[in-house]
């Protein structure tokens, strides 16, 4: 049962009627969308500052509200009420649409992610292919922003963004489908549905000292998990792979010329993207929303915030790679390793079955 079906049932709507089901699905989507935006609102203006401050031995926001949490409201009002400066000779439709594409496409991915406790908008048979497809739509937005801004820094940033996403997209997808070799389906499903990616991870892998270890694919194939983590860091453009933005080289890359609400949307899109990356990692490698004692949604939050913490840690601790190093790591290192991983996984499955 997906959330859309549950809501349709609660409201007494007929799930087989497209219009009635659509209404239920819009309510479900609004719940999921708002839920993710709340996460991003906490992560962006507050948690990110607090985490970086802790790493660099500072205090950061602490003036408004408990722990400075009300800075979220203050910053939202401040940023939305800034003047929107439209630079000379920007390509108008593309320049306006880019923030929309970046922020929107990141949200699309959450349609198929099982968040536990029955929260999942839809569960199509090709869920994994869908989520990879929409996650990479953001690259189009980045190129639009970079090319339309009429700024040389933006142009270089857009080019770097697309080169980086091209270099890491294939290792990401190849490593991602290596779990499909175990599961035999692209459907993400939920904890209770056996023949799905999440459901297949609930079987017991081994029993150590009376504790049952589930067959999460991070335990079954740690090599693929590590590869995917690195490729994901590059895909969301965080350190050490934040070359498209590289503040010390090209100012802010593709977002140099954006102000006001467009700036907010670019940042929003990036943060939703980090959480989407975390959600994909949690779903295909960390058993989805499964976990002991606590309800599924709590475990889902724990897992996506753990990935967010990892990206912030990398941001504070690792130096940025150069663009030529980035291309070499992607094409010479990650691609070869992901091929090796795919064949290795196929051989392991062949031997086990």
């Amino acid at each position: 049962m997906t959330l859309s079906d549950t809501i349709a049932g609660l409201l007494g709507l007929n799930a087989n009627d497209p219009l009635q089901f659509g209404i239920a699905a819009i309510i479900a989507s609004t719940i999921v969308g708002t839920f993710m935006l709340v996460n991003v609102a906490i992560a962006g203006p507050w948690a990110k500052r607090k985490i970086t401050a802790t790493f660099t031995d500072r205090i950061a926001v602490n003036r408004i509200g408990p722990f400075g949490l009300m800075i979220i409201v203050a910053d939202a009002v401040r940023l939305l009420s800034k003047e929107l400066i439209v630079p000379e000779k920007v390509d108008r439709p593309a320049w306006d649409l880019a923030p929309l594409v970046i922020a929107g496409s990141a949200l699309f991915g959450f349609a198929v992610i099982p968040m536990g406790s029955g929260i999942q908008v839809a569960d199509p048979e090709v869920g994994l292919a869908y989520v990879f497809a929409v996650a990479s739509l953001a690259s189009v937005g980045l190129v639009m922003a970079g090319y339309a801004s009429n700024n040389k820094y933006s142009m270089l940033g857009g080019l770097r963004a697309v080169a980086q996403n091209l270099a890491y997209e294939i290792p990401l997808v190849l490593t991602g489908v290596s779990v499909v070799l175990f599961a035999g389906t692209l459907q993400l499903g939920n904890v209770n549905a056996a023949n799905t990616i999440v459901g297949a991870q609930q079987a017991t892998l081994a029993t150590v000292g009376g504790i049952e270890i589930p067959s999460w694919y991070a335990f079954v194939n740690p090599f693929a998990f590590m590869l995917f983590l690195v490729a994901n860091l590059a895909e969301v453009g965080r350190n050490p792979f934040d070359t498209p933005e590289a503040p010390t080289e090209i100012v802010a890359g593709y977002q140099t010329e954006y102000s006001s609400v467009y700036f907010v949307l670019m940042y929003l899109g990036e943060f939703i993207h980090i959480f989407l990356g975390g959600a994909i990692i949690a779903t295909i490698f960390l058993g989805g929303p499964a976990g002991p004692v606590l309800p599924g949604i709590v475990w889902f939050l724990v897992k996506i915030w753990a990935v967010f913490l990892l990206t912030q840690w990398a941001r504070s601790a690792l130096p940025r790679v150069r663009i030529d190093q980035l291309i070499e790591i992607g094409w010479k290192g990650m691609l070869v390793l992901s091929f090796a991983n795919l064949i290795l996984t196929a051989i392991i499955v062949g031997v086990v079955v």
Partner: protein
Amino acid sequence: MGNPWIAIGALALVGLLIPVGMMGISKLLRPSVPEQGKRSTYESGEIPTGDTRIRFNIQYYMVALLFVIFDIETVLIFPWTVIYRSALENGVSLTRTLGPMLVFIGVLVVGLGWAWRNGAVKWVRSPRAETQKDAR
């Protein structure tokens, strides 16, 4: 069970309405003080020189070409991963399930090796950058 693609379409609609709504709210809140001076693009405080359509490294073009090849290859690998396990469980031999894919990936890896040797994934330096490097 409703059609999952209707639900996905609903989320796509909500996912677009949220940013559009934010743009609307901002439009109500923000001031508008048009002035020619602040509209010039940022170029470290200088008046921008020349056009934005600059010459850039050919490497970006090379990796884009490579990507097209390997992206089509991932599309072809997807269906194989889905049927692989059930084919093995139904008694199809490893040579018939894994063998053809090994050949396929092998051909691609040879292609990657060729591109590698030709320098398609090696960062191209301009002759000027090379002489500057030697002079140092």
